[in-house]
């Protein structure tokens, strides 16, 4: 449908809907439910240099309209992702955004250099914001100068555009966004999870073995929208928005706030068909609201005509 296509650095999206990293594995499971080529893109699970088992279980806990996770970046490691997962995904006509994680700057650089060579990887998503890894991770996501430098170094080695995933656990999200823009980021993805916790009523101890975890789902949507609203007015690079999206209406809400595309995370667990359903429902919603193309919705909350140059395909 030509009413949904969006052009972003490195990404020629047939529609602006993609599953969020960590909520869709490497696509195999959801390929049982529908043709992955329907998706605008796929953000695959974080990849690190070495295989990781991640944190002990329990790794998830439910909260009101949300969930906590502390998976701990479990993944088969760079080599296997490149040799098994990406080739498997290449049977689908869908651009891959590779989520890159690590503990040290060198880890990020190694993964970025290597994974960006895969032919179906059209962009990287630099995960400087995972709250569930002990070293590195979170600091990269909260100190502007560190984030700027990491972005710059990764840009130097990446063969595809680099999006940086911002953590919402900061006092000043605009400052972080500007720092990574300054570091050369081609785009932003936001938000990652809020750090949260649940306690077990019987034992008094945290439900998650990792104690704290990342809060995702509808509960965090208002925070995501506010941050995208602030950041989209302050930077000149596009934002892929996420945080609690589970319907076509919410996609529009994220566009209004300033997003140029969106990712759907937790909602996949609630409804495995959520992405294709949203994609199907968007055109008639655009009709109802009186828009020709979804890009017309972008940034409406803060400007009359929320359409930027890089927008329309």
């Amino acid at each position: 449908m030509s009413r949904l296509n969006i052009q972003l650095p490195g990404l020629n999206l047939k529609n602006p809907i993609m599953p969020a990293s960590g909520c869709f594995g490497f696509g195999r499971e959801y390929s049982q439910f529908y043709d992955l080529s329907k998706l605008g893109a796929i953000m695959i699970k974080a990849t690190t240099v070495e295989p990781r088992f991640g944190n002990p279980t329990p790794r998830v806990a439910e909260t009101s309209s949300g969930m906590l996770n502390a998976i701990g970046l479990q993944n088969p490691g760079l080599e296997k992702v490149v040799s098994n997962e990406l080739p498997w995904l290449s049977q689908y006509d869908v651009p891959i955004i590779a989520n890159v994680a690590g503990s040290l700057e060198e880890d990020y650089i190694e993964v970025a250099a290597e994974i960006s060579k895969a032919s179906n990887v059209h962009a990287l998503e630099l995960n400087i914001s995972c709250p569930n890894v002990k070293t590195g991770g979170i600091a990269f996501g909260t100190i502007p100068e560190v984030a700027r430098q990491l972005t710059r170094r990764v840009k130097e080695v990446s063969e595809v555009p680099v999006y940086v995933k911002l953590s919402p656990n900061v006092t000043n999200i605009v400052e972080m966004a500007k720092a990574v823009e300054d570091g050369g980021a081609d785009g932003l993805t936001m938000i990652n999870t809020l750090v949260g916790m649940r306690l077990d009523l019987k034992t008094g101890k945290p439900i998650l073995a990792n104690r704290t975890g990342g809060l995702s789902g509808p509960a965090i949507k208002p925070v995501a929208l506010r941050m995208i609203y602030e950041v989209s007015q302050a930077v000149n690079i596009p934002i892929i928005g996420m945080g609690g999206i589970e319907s076509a209406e919410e996609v529009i809400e994220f566009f209004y706030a300033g997003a140029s595309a969106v990712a759907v995370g937790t909602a996949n667990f609630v409804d495995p068909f959520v992405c294709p359903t949203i994609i199907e429902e968007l055109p008639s919603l655009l009709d109802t609201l009186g828009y020709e193309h979804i890009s017309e919705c972008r940034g409406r909350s803060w400007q009359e005509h929320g359409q930027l140059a890089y927008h329309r395909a």
Partner: protein
Amino acid sequence: MIKKEICKIISQKEIAQDIFQLNVEADFVNEINAPGQFVHIRVAKALDPLLRRPISISSVDKRNSQFTMIYRKEGKGTTLLAEKGPGMLLDILGPLGNGFPVNEVKAGETALLVGGGIGVPPLYELSKQLTAKGVKVIHVLGFQTESAVFYEKEFLEYGDTYITTVDGSYGKKGYVTDVIKELDFDCLYTCGPTPMLKAIEKQYSHKKVFLSLEERMGCGVGACFACVCKTSNELDDVSYKKVCSDGPVFRAGEVLI
């Protein structure tokens, strides 16, 4: 093939204290391929509670396209589930996972089915299928107390059935492990609380044992890595199995519990 289906509730009743038997109609019953598979239920249309609830399939009626679940009303989700009545609709994802391998025991052999509390239900369909194959089936079912006991009569139809209660208010006082010591069998199938599974695995490391595990789940289909456990037969420490899609039933020794 996993399906997501809006299923009609045929009946629901409380069969023991806080234990509910729920019967629904679903096209996907034809896809159920082994006892011990489970479904993932969305209990509310609204976004709280958000996640689906995993519940085992306790018996299947393919002719009428129906299946039965038995669950304990415990937290938020199962409390809402318990309020539903006949005719109401339920969003169910299933069938999920890999169930008990019925072919691991031959006609004439003896299978021991050991269930603890809310781990009992999936053994019912298993018992039916083993009996149909000509396997001799013995059931050992453990509960907390008399008011929590359910399905004794139903299991008795298929074979000897020993009930234990922790407080001795019904059947034999104690744990299932006290009873099974005295019994002989070719293959053991079990589902229940982790300490029970651990004890059984340890006691019968030389025997053919299949265990059904429980773990907190996100997706239920293998995508989120919430429900992993380490495999025990590998040298590295990054190998894993997912309870939702590789399990919930594993051969004893296959994974670390």
